[in-house]
Every structure is written in structure tokens, then in C-alpha cells.
């Protein structure tokens, strides 16, 4: 009988991630005909965001996307992977995951969470999105700015690290919050700002580039370990291809959107990124949370930054 691979994700069908899953399904069925039965549930229709990870861990679901933030929640030593300004690009993530450090990381996650990481998919780079036009050069300029953050300790901490006044708010309330001024700002990758139509209710985007974000396509370790070698290769290759396609598509979309937002009358500004990076990283490294981090990793990951990307910064 074919092996059931139920995939549940919170993203909507039009989202590039969701489309990448369809590619994964097609590729896998082509590579290993009749061996897999892939069912994709989007929009959180089977499991809600967050609950999908639990479901994979408990064997009620076979695949999903897993964020580095959720991993750090259970393995605090890997909180460093969620530090802003650490990863510089999608390629940087790939290089890290394929390195020795990446192997150790994957082994630890599999051990602790019973989940096998297949490939990182680029989500986009989080930028500031403000309700009113204002000068934002350094973190000091964000003092007192009510910035919406997802409702979790780690995200709220990031809001503080950026110098803002974080407000926890569910994603669904953000549009109205921006429109009416319950919040002054929010941060998300540009494609999210576009999809949620935040450009209708904001006046400025500041390219802080504070978090190059990615999520991992994952599979339950129990399912994974039952596969034979050729099946494993088929799944792994399909995952790599899906994420690669996603990365290219995302990057192109981001580049295109800057012009779109300008055409909608938003100011797109470039702050002093090194001032932000210094302030934010110091804030993290001085905090209690960094005490649990595996020492030396930040430097080693910094060293992996693709040269071209590194020089483009600043």
C-alpha cells in the first residue's frame, strides 16, 4: 500500500509555500510512482498553526512546515538561530543546514522532537511597516512606537530588541489595528504586507532587513525511518526542489514589491542597518536567553555568510 503523507500547513492556497507543496507532491509521485499518497491540507484546515508540529510529533500528521522559533521554544540552545541579523540570505540557510553544525542541529531536533528536518524554505525578510511617515534611522527612533508582534515571548523580545514598544496581537487584527491606530507599526516580509493589504493602511516601509526568515519542511521521524533508501532520496530531492523553487520565486516577488509599494504612495526608506544590527545583537547577547546558546555558533554561522551577500550589506 502507498505510504500516507498528510501535510497540514496554516498558509493559504495562493501562498508560495503552499504552492511549493504541490510541487513536492508532483515531484515525489513522479520519482516514486505509486509509493506515496500525498494529501495537502492548507489554511490550517486540519491542524491549526502550532498544533501541526505537535501532530507530527505525535504521529497524527506526517509533514508540515516548522519554524526555527518553535524549535528554539523546545531547544533553547538553538535560540541563536532566531537572532535577527544572523542569517543573510536563503543561501546562507542552505549552507548552514548542509554544514557539520547543520547535521548536529538536525540530529538534536530529531532526537528531542521526533521530527526530521528536510529543507529550509525562504519566507522572506522582515521589514518595518509604519502607519505614518517618520524618520527611522536607528533603533532610538522607534522609542515608544507600538509595534505589533505575534503573541509569543520570543517575538515580543525581538520587538524590544529593535527598540520598539511591542504589542502582542493576533495576525487577523493587524489590518484594523493599523487603520485605527491601535498599533503604529508591524513587521513582516513584503509579500505578507502585500497579501494582507497592509499597504492600504500604512504610509512607510523601512528596510531594516532585521530577520531573514525561513521555515523547515519537515517529516515525522517515525515515517522517515520506515522508508527505504531510494524512498528517502526521493522525498529529500522533492523537498529540496520544492524549497529551491520557493526561494527563487519569493526573492523575485520581494524585489518586485518595492516598486509596487512606492506606486501605492508608501515611502520606502533605508535605515542605518549597522546601527540596527549592533543594537539588536547586543541586546540578544546581553540577555539571559543567550546564556543557554551553544557557544561559538554565532561566530561560525557568521563565517558561513556567502561572500557576495556579506559584501552587499551596509
Amino acid at each position: 500500500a502507498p505510504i500516507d503523507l498528510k501535510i497540514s500547513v496554516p498558509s493559504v492556497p495562493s501562498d508560495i509555500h503552499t504552492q511549493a507543496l504541490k510541487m513536492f507532491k508532483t515531484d515525489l509521485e513522479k520519482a516514486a510512482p505509486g509509493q506515496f499518497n500525498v494529501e495537502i491540507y492548507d489554511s490550517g484546515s486540519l491542524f491549526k498553526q502550532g498544533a501541526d508540529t505537535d501532530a507530527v510529533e505525535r504521529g497524527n500528521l506526517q509533514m508540515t512546515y516548522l519554524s526555527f522559533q518553535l524549535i528554539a521554544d523546545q531547544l533553547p540552545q538553538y535560540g541563536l538561530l532566531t537572532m535577527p541579523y544572523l542569517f543573510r540570505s536563503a543561501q546562507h540557510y542552505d549552507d548552514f543546514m548542509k554544514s557539520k553544525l547543520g547535521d548536529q542541529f538536525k540530529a538534536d531536533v530529531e532526537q528531542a522532537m521526533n521530527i526530521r528536518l528536510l529543507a529550509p524554505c525562504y519566507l522572506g525578510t522582515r521589514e518595518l511597516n509604519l502607519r505614518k511617515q517618520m524618520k527611522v534611522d536607528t533603533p532610538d527612533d522607534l522609542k515608544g512606537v507600538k509595534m505589533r508582534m505575534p503573541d509569543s515571548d520570543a517575538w515580543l523580545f525581538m520587538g524590544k530588541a529593535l527598540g520598539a514598544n511591542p504589542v502582542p496581537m493576533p495576525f487577523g487584527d493587524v489590518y484594523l489595528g493599523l487603520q485605527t491606530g491601535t498599533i503604529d507599526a508591524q513587521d513582516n516580509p513584503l509579500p505578507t504586507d502585500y497579501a494582507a493589504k497592509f499597504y492600504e493602511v500604512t504610509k512607510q516601509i523601512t528596510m531594516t532587513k532585521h530577520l531573514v526568515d525561513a521555515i523547515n519542511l519537515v517529516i515525522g521521524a517515525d515515517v522517515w525511518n520506515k522508508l527505504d533508501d531510494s524512498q528517502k532520496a526521493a522525498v529529500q530531492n522533492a523537498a529540496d526542489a520544492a524549497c529551491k523553487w520557493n526561494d527563487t520565486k519569493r526573492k523575485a516577488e520581494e524585489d518586485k514589491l518595492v516598486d509596487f509599494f512606492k506606486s501605492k504612495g508608501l515611502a520606502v526608506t533605508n535605515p542605518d542597518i549597522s546601527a540596527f544590527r549592533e543594537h539588536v545583537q547586543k541586546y540578544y547577547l546581553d540577555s539571559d536567553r543567550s546564556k543557554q546558546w551553544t557557544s561559538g555558533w554565532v561566530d561560525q554561522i557568521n563565517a558561513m555568510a556567502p561572500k557576495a551577500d556579506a559584501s552587499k550589506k551596509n
Partner: protein
Amino acid sequence: MTKGAPSSGSAGALAWLGTMAKRVADWIGVALFLSAFMGFLVQVFYRYVLNAPLLWTQEFVMISFIWAVFWSAAFTVPIRKHVSFDVVYDIVSPETRRVFSVISMVAVIAAFALLVPYTWDYLTFMARRKSAVLRIPMDLVYGCYLLFIAGFAIQGFWRLIQLFGPSWRDQI
């Protein structure tokens, strides 16, 4: 212990205990609800009036809320008060209603008894998780559900006993 029995000392004490227990349960429900409500007001006040948003209120409100819900569903709301499909139930004879009630109570008790070990397993799994802001272990946050299943099953069991007793007409 049934209504028809002459009230001896111990039965009276038991009835008193039952009333007190119900009152305490009510008070706990009221307190949980009010703390959710207060949490909300504090949240609005700090963000809107003081412009200093609090991070913990939303989670605090949610925890109070689910505890209030499951606590009350288990211990303060009589089964007959829940929203149900009464169209058929209301037109059949009392004897049929008694049979209906016995069937539904048996179904509830069987299902909930089955669910208890599984819920326990899930809660044990969730013990490793902590809530996002307050960092409370999730098995404590979600523990109210186990309470609900057990409490509701016991309520159902009690009703079942009564349905077989002389005062079964009070239960339909």
C-alpha cells in the same frame, strides 16, 4: 440517598455537603470569569490609557477563560441546561424519555471514560511545552479539560443512577 428516603443525619449532612460543594463550584466559576474580564480591562487600560501595552494579559485572559468554561461545564451547569435537540425529546412519553436519557448517558460515560487515558497521555506530552508569554507548563493550562471530562462523566453517572431510582421523573 434518594429523595424518597427519610432524611437521616448522614443523608442530611450529605445534602448539605452537596449544596456547599455546588456553591463553592459556582464561586470558583464566577472568580475565573471575573479574572478573565479584569484581565481584559487591564489590557485596554495599559495600552490605550497608559500607552504601555502589557504582554501577559492576553494569555492570562485565555487561561482564565478556558478554565472558567471547562470548570463550569463540568461542575455547575446541569446536563439538561446544555443546548440540545429537543424536538423529538419533547414530544415522546416520559418513559421513552427515560430510555433516551439512559442511552445518551451510557454513550457519554463510555466515550469520556475512553478519552481519559488518551487525554492524560496528551497532557503528559504537553508538559514539555510552555505557554508563549507566561511560560506556564501547558499540561497545567490544559488540565481543565481532564477535569471537564471526568466531572462531566461523573455527573452523567450520577444522573444514570437517578434514572434507575424512584425519582427518575426529576431527571428527564
